[in-house]
């Protein structure tokens, strides 16, 4: 029996405890109101909803304040401040909200269940409701740019169509009036060249090679040889990066073998050591003479 008695006592204490916990606070509510800092926020922008509760009692349980349902709004967070002074308690709750769609939204009142100390009755205190008008989201930069591009495109299409209409109209008029817009044709005039280009071919191929031979004979230096090498590469239309072997392989099929001999001799003279340069230049001159002689015989 003692055990049954003990459990009954525990049960009574539990029921009493719950009854004490559920007992509403006795409050003298002086102020309980709700407001927003922006009445027309745009979609995606945030605004603040402030709920203020002022009571005479020095210690007020602000947790009993019931927030309304924020339909159509995103709740981004809340902040609660409580100030207790000699003349009572001020509770301020600030909720940050953001509209999810444009339109008018009415936020229902916040409520507070408490024993009204003025009437000694349980009461439900309510704030005012708040109405906001959520506006459309602001245009993004990309959208502005895109809209501008579309506007420009439209203007361009209109301009092109206008020009096309003008051309077609002009063409139609020309058909009707053949003399319209006739332009006097100016015959091209041949302009004599001031001086021959750097690689302009002489009248006689043999003369070209004689000039080269004369230069090489007068100045049998590497510099002269390199100048002839440049000339030969230009004549063969060698690419800048084309190696000599590649060049020979490319032109061998349709080039006079004597020109190939000259190319080989000049290439050798261009890179041979100084001791053998004179001999290499003489070989090159010999090959050039054979070429010049053959070409003179042809002409």
């Amino acid at each position, binding site marked *: 029996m003692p055990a049954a008695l003990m459990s009954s006592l525990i049960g009574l204490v539990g029921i009493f405890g719950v009854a004490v916990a559920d007992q509403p606070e006795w409050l003298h509510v002086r102020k309980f109101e709700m407001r927003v800092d922006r009445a027309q926020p745009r979609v995606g922008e945030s605004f603040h909803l402030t709920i203020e509760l002022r009571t005479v009692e020095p210690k007020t349980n602000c947790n009993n304040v019931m927030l309304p349902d924020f339909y159509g709004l995103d709740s981004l967070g809340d902040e609660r401040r409580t100030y207790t002074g000699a003349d009572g308690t001020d509770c301020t709750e600030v909720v940050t909200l953001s509209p999810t769609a444009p339109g008018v939204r009415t936020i229902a009142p916040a409520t507070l269940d408490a024993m009204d100390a003025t009437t000694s009755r349980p009461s439900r205190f309510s704030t005012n409701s708040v109405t906001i008008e959520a506006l459309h989201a602001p245009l993004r930069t990309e959208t502005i740019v895109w809209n501008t591009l579309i506007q420009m495109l439209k203007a361009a299409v209109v301009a092109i169509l206008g020009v096309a209409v003008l051309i077609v109209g002009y063409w139609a008029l020309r058909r009707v009036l053949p003399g319209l817009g006739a332009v006097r044709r100016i015959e091209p005039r041949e302009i004599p060249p001031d001086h021959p280009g750097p690689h302009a071919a002489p009248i006689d191929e043999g003369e070209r090679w004689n000039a080269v031979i004369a230069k090489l004979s007068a100045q049998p230096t*590497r510099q002269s040889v390199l100048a002839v090498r440049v000339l030969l590469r230009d004549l063969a239309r060698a690419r*800048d*990066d*084309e*190696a*000599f*072997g590649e060049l020979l392989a490319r032109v061998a099929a349709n080039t006079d073998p004597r020109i190939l001999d000259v190319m080989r001799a000049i*290439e050798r003279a*261009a*890179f*041979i*050591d*100084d001791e*053998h340069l004179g001999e290499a230049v003489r070989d090159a001159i010999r090959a050039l003479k054979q070429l010049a002689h053959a070409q003179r015989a042809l002409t």
Partner: protein
Amino acid sequence: MIPGALLDVLATVIVGQRAVLEAMVLALIADGHVLLEGPPGLAKTLACKTLAASVGGAYKRVQFTPDLLPSDIVGTRVFDQRTGDFRTVLGPIFANVLLADEINRAPAKVQSALLEGMQERQVTIGLETHALPDPFIVAATMNSLDADGTYALPQAQTDRFLIKVLVPYPSAEEEVHIAERFGGAPMPLPHCVISIDDVLAWRQAAREVFVEKRLFAYAADLSRATRRPHPHIEHGASPRATLSMIALGRARAFLEGRGFVYPDDIRAVAPAALRHRVTLSYRALADRANVDELIDALLASVPIA
């Protein structure tokens, strides 16, 4: 014996692969090390063995494996119980021709053991420094990096190879010839066709081959072309690449019996001297860029000397 004759001797064993054999002889003349890369079964090892056998002198072979240690290559100090003192046991690197077979199967620390020997021709074991024999040439083979169980060679290591040769598959005709030549009894290798003195004389002669000053600039321009900003290149070739091209150009001229270098010599050896010295970027790997195509494009951007 002239270098061209050595090429002919090598060709009696190796079917085709003339460019590979020529590159190996060029490296021998230019006093450099050669790296052969290609899929397994393309006679990379046989080519190195044939070259080594043709050159008189000491020949050693090291099969690179994942558990190889640096001391397995350079040597180590061991305690001699009879004398009660430590003595140095020299490793296989002390040879005239060292065949580093499948070099990329060993991790980087083992590959790095070759660095001092390849560059400075000496090896330090403990506190003692030992000079390597002259000539000393490392002929290394490696499988393509995408093969399983291989490690990438460190850049410092690859830079020390004078030349990297890609070993291609043989043609259909060559493959038939290979089957005929190696289908029966083992093929005997040519033995001591040239002497060490021949090699040293060739090297001296090649060093005296004339290089016109424009070609130095041309080789430098080719190296510098790999250092221009390019989305597929992480690092360009070092100045050692320029030196390699000049040395190989001289060797090529000497091989052809000339006493001077043509621009074509430099141009011909450039891909083999550059391909292992250009580090591709991550984007190049993602784009599956080919280093040889990249180098060809870069070379085409440099006017010939």
